[in-house]
């Protein structure tokens, strides 16, 4: 709604508007092409589109990046928790072994 990209405020003129009055007077056909104004307008258009696409792409990259890094972050949290549990389990095993030896030795 309030885009940061500069916008065209007036409609682009059509090509024949600039070309028509110059035609056929001295036997020369005017080169049908784009007058400077149109070219400038076209360039502005292109720049605008480019800026919009670039901005969109950067937004997309950010959005996708954040989404998947969130998932990865959560996965890392899970891994950390899992390894903590593994350590806990090792401690439990050691404790059981210790007790097993004690029981063999007699209380």
């Amino acid at each position, binding site marked *: 709604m*309030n885009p940061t990209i500069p916008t065209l405020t007036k409609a682009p003129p059509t090509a024949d508007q600039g070309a028509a009055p110059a035609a056929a007077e001295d036997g020369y056909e005017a080169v049908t092409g784009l007058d400077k104004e149109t070219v400038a307008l076209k360039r502005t258009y292109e720049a605008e589109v480019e800026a919009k696409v670039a901005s969109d*792409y950067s937004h997309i990259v950010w959005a996708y990046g954040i989404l998947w890094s969130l*998932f990865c972050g959560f996965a890392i949290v*899970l891994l950390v928790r899992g390894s903590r549990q593994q350590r806990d389990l090792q401690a*439990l095993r050691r404790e059981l072994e210790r*007790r097993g030896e004690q029981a063999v030795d007699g209380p």
Partner: protein
Amino acid sequence: MSALLRSFGRPGVLLFAALVTFPYALQRVFLHTPIESEMGTAQKIFYFHLPMAWGLMLFAMISGVAAALQLLRRSERAEDVAKAAGEVCALLGIGALMSGAIWGDATWGTPWTGDARLVTTALLELVFIAYLIVAKFGGPMAGRLAAALAVFGALDVPIIYYSVKIWKTTHPKAQVVQSLPPEMWASLWPCLFAILACSFALFELRLRQERVERRLDEAWLALSAGDAAPAEHTALSGRSA
């Protein structure tokens, strides 16, 4: 391959499925879906944003129902489910809100509007962040308090949505998401699948950890019971051998 998958279990399979679907979804989204005329390329964010928001609702419901079962039936299984779902819910909520803000910045030029869907999502996310906070710092009754919170959170989903909508009527703004053309829907499904598969995989991994934690607690408890009754020492260690 199948042996590998089996060793990973269901979460592994789900993660693998998500991993396979993701590139397919991406190429569909970027190569086979027309660029939305009004919002431009940035609308591609939508294909992963919407599944996250839906996932948020889904896991909020799962967590709420499980929490209700936990409270009314005293089910430990339900408690684990509620907890795991609550965490995934908070995760998806952050994802949905952040991607939404980025999308909004690209298309509307502002990361936040008072749109009903945004406020609904944000409120629900707050509820589940509160859930995590209470579960962590709630003291001896943390589990039950957090469960009640999840129940109210799930119950609040329609109420929140409705209240935000009527609140909106006093500050009217344009509709944000128009009805989608069918080709966009077609691209949405693989994205939805990828996100949900990934979420469910994480959910299940979390759930397993919750169960392991419980078993470890029980094992330590039983072990300390062995301290009290020397006669049981041998029995305990005998089993472990």
